[in-house]
């Protein structure tokens, strides 16, 4: 059997773990290191470096090295404009499109960069299994974690990254929930748990109720743009200001804007070291070349207080959503490297009025939980069950730019919601639908997830069609939709593509090592073939319907309603054409073939007759 793993795809570091003899363990390299820095560097000649080696290259070839790419997942160019300047690499992309990262003369999307990190973890795991003497050491399936507060586009981007890396993504699960699973292994009692997860780039708080081995998330909240990276930027600003205005005693660099990207990375490395030092000591020095700045823990804490404060509001909101007071929480679990900062621990302890747990390594606990979930999925082990929620409300745009909520935040997933649509003018056959995620009233204040056109509504007077659109959020927190016109029972599959996402074709093109995944390629090819066939049948049908003699044929040879039936199937087939469900596409294609058989015969007969008639004329 090939292997399954759990992967924590972090902003700063990533890890891979698996279940060995019933217990999860992280996989380490030869030197005992479990963390793979989430850094990718592409050399002049196109050589790709991932992890520690890429991290080193930040100091020698910063412009060709990417870190913290998780911050860009599922984002549009506009979302990251103000932030891009903090990074040495080039951030671009079309307006309204996916972010692209330029390394040398090539451009990569964030899922492609993440896929390189995932492939590194996959290879690390495969080497581990090979070394352990496993016969089949291929790792082809994984559970990957995401921040609980990730929206649909960010989750989809993560799943795409997995696919590009050649992994079947069994499940996307939330980091705090994964952590609770890892803790749940040896604490199988009932209670209310708060998981406070402050990582490199994201912050999550989840409130869970544990009973009978069911880990039920009651509420979740967070900030997908808050973490250790922000602490680093604050410290860097302090150093850069001093270097810039010349007040420092010794200064290797004159001013921030004269620094090379490599020098800036050197400063970044130095402030991160100082940050780490201050978790164990009360004072330290930031040392960059000859420059040295003394900093005390008190100064550091004052500096980062705004960041700590920003984590507390989501905690209060999550408690309120769960209908709980802080004192009702039985246990508090700390996750993420940034929870090593003493001030963070203190603030959490104060808020909940109890000392938080940190028995498990906060860097490793998420990967351990992901491994447990992967094991549950493949073995069907029913000791534990994780019931998660959707972090953000799902809604659609209604009149006047107002959002009508369909699935409320903190609903247990999978979840469904439906909405009825009708038409505004007579014989209208399509309705535009705009799907959003967020808590605000107005469309403009929420995240646009997707826009799609609901087609194939049978022509009727305005207001008469009753189109029910059913939204489904699956166990990954990812959205899909289906529509049904209730009067005619016409079903329509709808693919909800994120506004800032990749198409299936793009993902296919990006597949790394596709030769390793012949099977997936075959499925993709069959899908493309099915689509091509469907398209040619549609084209042929439409050509017949548009032909000059068609009105006459319809009048004299077709049954009443025959044309309408054909048209509605064409509309249906168009609807499913871009889905990745090959069977459905084929089903509709066959239906169209059947529906047009009679018409084709009629047309064939007529053309034969016409040809014969022509011959007769020629012969005369």
């Amino acid at each position, binding site marked *: 059997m090939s292997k399954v793993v759990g992967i924590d795809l972090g902003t700063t570091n990533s890890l891979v773990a698996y279940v060995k003899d019933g217990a999860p363990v992280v996989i380490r390299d030869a030197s005992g290191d479990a963390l793979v820095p989430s850094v990718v560097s592409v050399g002049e000649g196109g050589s790709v470096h991932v992890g520690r080696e890429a991290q080193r290259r930040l100091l020698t070839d910063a412009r060709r090295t990417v870190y913290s790419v998780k911050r860009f997942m599922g984002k549009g160019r506009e979302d990251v404009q103000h932030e891009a300047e903090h990074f040495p690499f080039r951030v671009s992309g079309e307006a309204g499109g996916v972010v692209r990262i330029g390394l040398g003369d090539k451009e990569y999307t964030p899922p492609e960069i993440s896929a390189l990190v995932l492939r590194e973890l996959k290879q690390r795991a495969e080497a581990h299994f090979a070394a352990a003497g496993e016969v089949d050491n291929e790792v082809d399936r994984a559970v990957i974690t995401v921040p609980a507060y990730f929206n649909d586009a960010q989750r989809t981007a993560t799943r795409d990254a997995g696919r590009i890396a050649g992994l079947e993504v*069994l*499940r996307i699960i939330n980091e705090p929930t994964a952590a609770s699973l890892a803790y749940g292994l040896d604490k199988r009692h009932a209670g209310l748990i708060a998981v406070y997860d402050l990582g490199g780039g994201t912050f999550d708080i989840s409130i869970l109720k544990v009973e009978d081995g*069911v880990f039920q998330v009651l509420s979740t909240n967070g900030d997908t743009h808050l973490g250790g990276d922000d602490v680093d930027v604050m410290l860097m600003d302090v150093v850069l200001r001093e270097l810039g205005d010349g007040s420092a005693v010794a200064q290797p660099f004159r001013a921030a804007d004269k620094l090379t990207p490599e020098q800036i990375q050197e400063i970044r490395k130095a402030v991160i070291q100082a940050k780490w030092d201050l978790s164990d000591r009360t004072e330290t020095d930031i040392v960059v070349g000859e420059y040295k700045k003394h900093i005390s823990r008190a100064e550091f804490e004052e500096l980062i207080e705004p960041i700590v404060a920003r984590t507390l509001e989501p905690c209060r909101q999550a408690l309120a959503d769960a209908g709980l007071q802080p004192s009702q929480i039985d246990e508090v679990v700390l996750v993420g490297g940034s929870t090593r900062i003493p001030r963070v621990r203190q603030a959490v302890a104060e808020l909940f009025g109890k000392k938080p747990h940190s028995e498990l390594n906060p860097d490793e606990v998420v990967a351990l939980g992901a491994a447990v979930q992967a094991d549950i999925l493949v073995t069907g082990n029913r000791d534990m*069950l994780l019931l998660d929620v959707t972090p953000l409300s799902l809604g659609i745009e209604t009149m006047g730019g107002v959002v009508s909520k369909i699935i409320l935040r903190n609903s247990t997933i*999978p979840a469904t919601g439906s*909405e009825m649509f009708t038409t505004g003018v007579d014989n209208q056959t399509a309705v535009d639908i705009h799907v959003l995620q967020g808590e605000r009233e107005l469309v403009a204040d929420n995240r646009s997830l997707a826009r799609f056109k609901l087609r194939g509504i049978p022509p009727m007077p305005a207001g008469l069609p009753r189109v029910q659109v059913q939204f489904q959020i699956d166990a990954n927190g990812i959205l899909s939709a289906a529509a049904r016109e209730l009067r005619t029972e016409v079903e329509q599959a709808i693919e909800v593509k994120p506004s800032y996402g990749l198409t299936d074709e793009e993902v296919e093109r990006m597949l790394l090592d596709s030769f390793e995944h012949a099977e997936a390629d075959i499925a993709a090819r069959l899908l493309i073939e099915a689509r091509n066939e469907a398209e040619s049948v549609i084209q042929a049908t439409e050509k017949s319907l548009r032909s000059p003699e068609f009105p006459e044929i319809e009048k004299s040879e077709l049954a009443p309603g025959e044309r309408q039936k054909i048209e509605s199937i064409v509309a249906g087939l168009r609807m499913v054409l871009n889905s990745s469900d090959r069977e459905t596409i084929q089903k509709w294609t066959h239906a169209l073939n059947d529906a047009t058989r009679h018409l084709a015969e009629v047309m064939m007969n007529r053309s034969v007759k016409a040809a014969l008639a022509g011959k007769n004329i020629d012969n005369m």
Partner: protein
Amino acid sequence: MAAPSELDTPRSTIQACPTCGAGAPLDAHFCPQCTKILPLPRRADYFSFVGVPRRLNLDPSLLEERFRSLSRQFHPDYFYNATPAERRASLERSSYLNDAYRTLRQPAGRIEYLLKLEGLAPDNPTEASRKVPPSLLEEVFALNEELDEIREQRADGAPAETWRARLERARQPIERKRVEHETQLEELAARWDAGSSDGERRAILESLRDRFLERNYIANLLATIERELSST
């Protein structure tokens, strides 16, 4: 926006298991013959789907227990290696269970749902919530007048403590109405649960509907005051 028509009327009381073809009761979650998970043939009512009595006062621990137990039977985690049809059935049943649990968990959710089941829900809930219930006309009129004056006061630059105190005072009669309604709803709910004849229950339910719409209206009024208080 689930309309009442979403609850299909059962055309038959039995369904065929798609796996083994055996007949299964329409309410069964799993095939009695081959034990495979069954597709969701119709939108069964939430109470019977979850397996709790159709009551407005529901033992919360019973609901929780049923929710956990059914989650353990339906969840997609346990159907990863199953056939596509079983996976779809698992997704359908899990989603439906989660929707049912969310609806039945809160007393207000149960009342609203029961009204819908009994065909007593307003056709257009948004519109219904905007219409002033006759019994609240007096309070609403007074409040609107007061709000207008307060807004004027604020526009003229009155100090925050003055208009805040006035808003707080304006809130009090509405808050009293809210408490009053909660009590009435609880009483009516208890009476409906205990009701013996259909006619009696129908009459109680109609009163419940009126109180419920008023309650929603009151909640909106309180939210308006809250917005006014938090605006600067």
